[in-house]
């Protein structure tokens, strides 16, 4: 007996999806693009050389001449923020990309390979995680001297184990799903399993983690600058600008406000973007 079954007729409704952003995400993206642009062309726009003392009155107020006032030595804050964008955005961006790429891929490999490889790698990185981040930065910079590549690599190294842990935990869960077992039973190699089967399914949380890590890197970079190990004077990243002008707060000077706003706007916008990524990237399951 042949039974009649309406197979194609009962299809669940297709989700409306695509690469559309919510407006919050769009604002975040706009601010990030703005800062990226500033980092690229900012120094050319700066009205004064960022290291030059242009005003004999320190902690000067906002004026037509100095749009954001002057700092503790009488340097133009506006010019210094434009220049600082290059350091803060550039270094943090490079470091976070390095940290997350390394961490995520090592995490996925560990999850798929398992066994002794996973154990040795995990314990090594756990041990590394135990070193306080500022202390580690201090040792490295003291040993090899401060330069932009050293800063980027140091920051990436500090944040890579966390990213590894996070990605490995996600990948271990995906690795036990039947579709990975099917691919493995088909005879697929580790590379395919990692890139095609697992990676797309952990991408959403990994991006959210990346946003958070970016913010932390901005903070550690500021911390290193505070110790004099970060970006070297006369240049300064935003964190250093906040630190060197902090005394101006009691004098009512605007010098410390603007770099703070810059840091806040960058970190908040990164999270606005990450939290509002299009559904297509963020969650493939729904």
């Amino acid at each position, binding site marked *: 007996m042949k039974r009649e079954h309406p*197979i*194609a007729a*009962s299809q669940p409704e297709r*989700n409306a999806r695509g690469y559309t952003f919510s407006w919050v995400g769009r604002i975040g993206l706009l601010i990030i693009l703005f800062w990226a642009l500033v980092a690229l062309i900012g120094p050319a726009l700066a009205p004064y050389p960022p290291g030059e003392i242009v005003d004999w009155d320190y902690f000067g107020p906002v004026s037509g001449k100095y749009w954001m006032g002057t700092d503790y030595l009488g340097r133009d804050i506006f010019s210094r923020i434009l220049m600082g964008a290059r350091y803060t955005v550039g270094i943090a961006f490079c470091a976070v990309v390095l940290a997350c790429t390394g961490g995520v891929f090592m995490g996925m490999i560990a999850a798929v390979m398992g066994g002794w490889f996973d154990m040795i790698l995990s314990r090594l990185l756990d041990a590394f995680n135990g070193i306080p981040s500022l202390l580690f930065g201090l040792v490295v910079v003291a040993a090899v001297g401060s330069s932009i590549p050293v800063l980027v690599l140091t920051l990436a190294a500090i944040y890579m184990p966390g990213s590894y842990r996070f990605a490995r935990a996600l990948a271990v869960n995906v690795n036990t799903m*039947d*579709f990975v077992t099917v691919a493995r039973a088909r005879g697929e190699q580790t590379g395919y399993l990692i890139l095609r089967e697992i990676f797309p399914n952990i991408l959403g949380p990994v991006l959210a983690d990346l946003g958070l890590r970016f913010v932390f890197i901005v903070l550690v970079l500021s911390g290193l600058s505070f110790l004099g190990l970060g970006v070297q004077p006369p240049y300064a990243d935003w964190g250093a600008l906040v630190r060197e002008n902090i005394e101006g707060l009691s004098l009512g000077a605007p010098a410390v406000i603007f770099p703070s706003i810059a840091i806040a706007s960058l970190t908040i916008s990164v999270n606005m973007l990450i939290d509002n990524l299009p559904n297509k990237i963020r969650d493939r399951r729904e």
Partner: protein
Amino acid sequence: MTNAPLVTVRDLRIGATTDSGRKVEIIKDVSFDVAPGEIVALIGESGSGKTTIALSLMGHTRSGCDITGGTITLGEDTVTAMTERGRARLRGTKVSYIPQSAAAAFNPSKRIMDQVTEINAIHRLMPRSAAEAKAVELFRALALPEPETIGERYPHQVSGGQLQRLSAAMALIGGPSLVIFDEPTTALDVTTQIEVLRAFKSVMQAGGIAGVYVSHDLAVVAQIADRVIVLRGGEIQEEGRTDQILRSPTHAYTKQLVAAFDPVPHASVAAETGVSAKPPILEVTNLHAGYGAIHNGEPTFKILKNINFRLERGRNMGVIGESGSGKSTLARAIAGILPPYQGTILLDGQEMRGALKGRSKDELRRAQIVFQLADTALNPAHSIGNILGRPLTFYHGLKGAAREARVIELLDMVHLPATMRHRLPGELSGGQKQRINLARALAAEPELILCDEITSALDTVVAAAILDLLKELQQGLGLSYLFISHDLSTVEAICDDVLVMLMGEVVEALPAADMSEQATHAYSRLLISSVPRLDTGWLAGLEQDPALVAQFAKR
């Protein structure tokens, strides 16, 4: 007043708001009554609204859902007009609920007695000692072992069947006039299910308690319900006395449901002559497999012990057994996912290595595996076209237009439209996903397909369609199936031979067509006799040897 119904549901409508903010109606103008002491079954496929209706009798809806119209009265109370506080007073005392998974319904860190008498503690019905005495009485009525002391145990110290009966005790302690059963035996093994059903039936009859029994399984419902309501898409399709529904269903959908139960005997497609000329497609000898750390060449947890069988080309082998018997492990061991530590696997007369890494691409291609849960076996990030296309590229090197054409061909083989290749798995129904899983296995052009409970998670009618498809594909492509299932009627419908497994061993090999007549091993007989029949008198008339039951059933 004896004729007045206990529960009256009139024009019930329940709506839900989807994530995108769209409003959908789940239950559309449903009306029915339940008389005092009567058990009414709500039956239908997943998504038919049976659980939603049952929950609404307590005035409860799952989050996102709302009762948008109609009235529900329970005895003197109009549930739909009550405040949430009023409903809370009702729950446990007048209406109570038995969930599908008792294991999930018990708090693992509290003693059973405290949980069973919790309703009493919340509603302050009687002193604690009286409540405990009543609980012990209920334990006895539910035929639980050691009724005096079982309450002192923790949930993990009793078996699944016992826990399900304990959740019935929990529901009955407040003396409700209506009990809602939400698929309470679906997760249990058949030999366990019998005892639970018997216990439910006897306490309900003894107390004259009315029940609403939600189930997808017509045979189970036949044993316990007085009346059956058939639901589909939130609407009542048919309503009638149980024997009437079973014997002479009038609605087309009910007929389909009943028909899906009829074992359609399987006609083997393999030509009996000339079979011996070729080596069997699969021959397993002395197979041992297990999990855990390996010491002296043996794993810590040995699951499969000394498995031997031959599967001839074009024939189908069923593997039956209860949960934990090692059925799925057998499929995994043959597929190489769990390498056996002893024994040989011959595919078409050629010995295969145990581990995946030791097998050639061609060996992997010839034996494909399909899993039970259709949705977790499909990568949610890949389109259907990619899912089906990958084995084509991997095994056959197909690319571009040739690959696309073959994907369309494969979709057609499993009766799905070609446009489906652009979709993601999340946009497909359960039955469609399982068809894609089959199509992916077929893409490899295999000779043997290992089917691991592939119809168990599907609705009866959908599962029947998948079985039809399997038979059709076998005729066209000359496949052989190793078909693993806990459901005997499914195995009967598709297999030539059946292996009965118990605790990692094959206890008996039987011809599928007359399993019950030819079974000689005590466990096979027990297992076969425990499968509910589509007959209202089956449970009452069933006699099983208590010694056998004690020996094999995990009650």
